[in-house]
């Protein structure tokens, strides 16, 4: 313990940020390597996704073209269509062609409308994405405050009745499927009260009901998770440290507990966003929303395989991008995540 050194060293640094630069280079290098590995994994995932999309048409029992065109179609028509789709070529040729087309954004043309699949999807994609993202934001905005508040209220086994009410009502709410809630909402707010449009995409008013239908159940589930996670973190030693420092309750909940509870919360929220992307299919049907979901259902019923292939791949891509984004956000919140992955990667 060198006391003279202590006294004679007036600190000249300006603040917390003063030493950031060296830190940044180190952690950014770590970050780069991490991002590199993620990109590699991402590429692998895309390949897997495309392969599954390709396999889909070949997993169909019997002749997909015959299935699509129906029993009424002549042999000649079926043969022509098979040729047009390249189904007469060896499987490996078809596979290579499919992958190289897909990489260039080509998924063939619809069997029924003759429209290019890529064009059809890009027309509808925006409307679906808008719905999913907006719902996700609503879910986060509802679930996190609700979860934190209910954790604060039920901390240390207090308010058992509130806890029972909260957990039970979230189960009940989470049970109501989006498309059923959608119909109830339509009936009440569009048919009876006539406050909001029944269907279609015509300005922000028409977003309200679809977004509520999509977000209520996931918000209930996520609020539960946030509560449990925050409660777990509140039992940690460092919370006691913060209390020993007499930091105010708000600080303890928002600055100390919540960020630590975010790891699990965001992981699940990521899965939910992925679920919301797919969930739009059901809600779009109720509201005749001009998105991918509506045309996905039609395509499955019509056995319009190129369309289904293209859309499955786009949905899957959305899910994968979501997972990557969540991963990046997580490592920004919790520096240990990056380090752990780094070590396990070696």
């Amino acid at each position, binding site marked *: 313990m060198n006391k003279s050194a202590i006294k004679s060293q007036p*600190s000249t640094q300006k603040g*917390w940020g003063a030493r950031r630069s060296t830190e940044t280079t180190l952690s950014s290098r770590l970050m780069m390597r991490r991002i590199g590995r993620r990109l590699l994994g991402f590429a692998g995932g895309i390949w897997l996704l495309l392969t599954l999309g390709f396999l889909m048409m070949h997993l169909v029992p019997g002749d997909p073209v015959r299935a699509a065109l129906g029993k009424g179609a002549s042999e000649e028509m079926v043969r022509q269509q098979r040729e047009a789709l390249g189904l007469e070529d060896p499987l490996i040729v078809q596979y290579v062609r499919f992958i190289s087309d897909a990489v260039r954004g080509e998924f063939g043309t619809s069997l029924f409308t003759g429209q290019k699949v890529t064009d059809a999807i890009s027309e509808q994609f925006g409307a679906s994405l808008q719905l999913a993202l907006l719902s996700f934001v609503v879910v986060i905005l509802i679930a996190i405050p609700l979860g934190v508040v209910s954790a604060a209220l039920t901390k240390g086994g207090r308010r058992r009745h509130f806890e029972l009410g909260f957990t039970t009502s979230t189960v009940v709410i989470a049970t109501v*499927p989006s498309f059923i809630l959608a*119909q109830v909402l339509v009936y009440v707010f569009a048919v009876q009260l006539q406050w909001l449009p029944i269907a279609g995409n015509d300005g922000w008013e028409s977003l309200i009901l679809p977004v509520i239908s999509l977000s209520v159940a996931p918000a209930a589930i996520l609020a539960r998770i946030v509560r449990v996670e925050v409660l777990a973190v509140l039992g940690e030693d460092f919370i006691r440290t913060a209390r*020993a420092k007499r930091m105010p309750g708000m600080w303890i909940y928002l600055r100390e507990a919540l960020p630590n509870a975010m790891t699990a919360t965001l992981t699940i929220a990521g899965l939910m966003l992925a679920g919301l992307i797919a969930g739009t299919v059901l809600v779009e049907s109720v509201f005749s929303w001009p998105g991918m979901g509506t045309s996905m259902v039609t395509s499955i019923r019509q056995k319009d395989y190129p369309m289904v292939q293209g859309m499955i791949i786009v949905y*899957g891509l959305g899910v994968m991008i979501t997972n990557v984004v969540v991963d990046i956000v997580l490592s920004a919140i919790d520096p240990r995540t990056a380090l752990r992955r780094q070590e396990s990667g070696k």
Partner: protein
Amino acid sequence: MKSSKNTWSAVFTRPVGIVGLVLVFALVVIAVIGPFVWGEAATATNTGNINAPDSGEYLFGTDSLGRDIFARVMVATRLSLVLALVATLIGLVIGLVIGSARILFGPIGGRIADVIINVTNAFPSLLMILFFAAVFGVSTIGAVMALALSTAPTFARLTWTLTASVEKLEYVDAAKVSGVSRPKILMRHVLPNVAEALILNATLSAGTALLAFGGLSFLGIGIQPPEFDFGRLLNEGFSQFYVNPVAVLGPAAAVVLAGLGFNLLGEAIAHSVSQRGEGAAAPKRPAKRSAEVTRLLQAKRKDADVLVVEDLKVSFGARGASVTPVRGVDIRLGAGQRVGIVGESGSGKSLTALAIADLIEAPGRVDVARREFSGHELDQMPAAERDTLLGKSLSVVFQNPMTSFNPIRRIGPQLGDGIRRHMGASKEEAHRRAVRRLEEVGIKQAEERLQKYPFEFSGGMQQRAMIAMGTMGRPRLIIADEPTTALDVTTQSRVLRLLKDLSERENAALLLISHDIAVIGKITDRVLVMYAGKVIEDLPSEDLAAKSVHPYTRALLSALPDLDTDRDQPLTVIPGRAPAPAEIGKGCPFAPRCDFATDKCREQEPELLPAGPVHTAACWHPVSANQATLPPSRASLLPMIDNEEMIK
């Protein structure tokens, strides 16, 4: 699995569980009798009465062919339930096989399964349902398969996680060695261990499957006419929704109630599984002392004391059924005074420390006749003022430095929080002070260190940083609760030395909690020995070896190893164990372990009485200051207050 019987009975007695059971039971009954009772009405067309609204005759109205929708809902129950259960069952079996691939197919199969589980779990089930619906085509079997395959990943992951612990068990290895076939191992040894979790998950999955079928058929890619399930009815009702909303709302209610039944049941099972073994006790608020008593007590306040605590009690649990681990402790600390509290685990010493720092949380309860800090009556202060006072001048060093810092915040800001909050320090001031404090506790390159996260510090360094954090303000009292327990021996001495130096330099009082009487003796002026929630002896540290009179203190001292201790012999231990708070009855709590105990000891608990000028002890038969009970070699090691060599 011992208490699984209780688990199940707990499910059946909770309201949530009962409602769930009733719903599922009703569902099963309707599924069984539905087609017999309502079969005819469900299919009988009545063209004279199409799309009728709800009425007494037709509860949910009629559809576009004039069929009774209520009857159709009742009949559809069977198909909906059967399909959901079949899909869940198929999913369960597939998931079970994939999830136990390591056991069934060996390591290579396991690795493949691991990849499959990870990839499939990342995709939302609805997307998988759509994929498989496209593959299998629009048919009942296609829908069932699609649903089964989309639930399989969840079961696979669950089985995978659960078997990871089971397959390491010795009897599984033994079974492998003795040539039992792999499927048999799975059936006999693995399944019974994972069954409970799988049942819980299957219950929830059945609910999910029911709802998912509803969605699929609603979209028109599930069940096809003339067959119908709930979803199909929703689909048919949707076309006349605006005319006759009850045609949708009726089947919708059926779907939701059915799904709810399974979900509530699963919820109740999960709850009772997680509650198992958890003795829940309702907490209560501490009672307020009357204002008059407070005034009386304040009148005899002594200003020189940093801390005055009188009759401190800490209890847990509801009144009547509560336990009281701290049963009335008095502590008085002068400025700069260093006092140690020593005792075995369970003696109440840590709770005493936490109570003094006002850190006991529900369900714990603190009752105290008087709690004064720096001349302020704490329980009479507005909360905000109290926080500022304590934030500035009371600091706590905890037992586990590794877990006592927030893992995802940099050390610097964590050190600065307190003075920025309570003393209005700016970011820069806080930073400068943190650098100085870190250097004082011997952490080099403090500037850089402040930018690090706790996990980048060693244990000893974290504890020193924790002490540095305790000196950021103007500490009048430092409470250190077992500050060296988690550290190695060399680091221990440094940390103790540091605490002593700090208390001297800042003229801050130190309250050191430890189970180790040697640690206490080294750096404190006075020692309080605690046993069973009370102070049983209070004396100057330097008198410990020579003048302590309580048999328990003597026993603690003679249990100390020293250089002359024969390492081949087991260490002397005090026979018996300290009583748990609930076991404390009448008489002296130490009596059962005491060589000197008499009937009086067993009948009446002794009070703290003077045993010397600055010495009190609670004992009916104090051991006379007899050096013979302690070998001279040991006596020479104590007191260690002057023995600086020990610390360096």
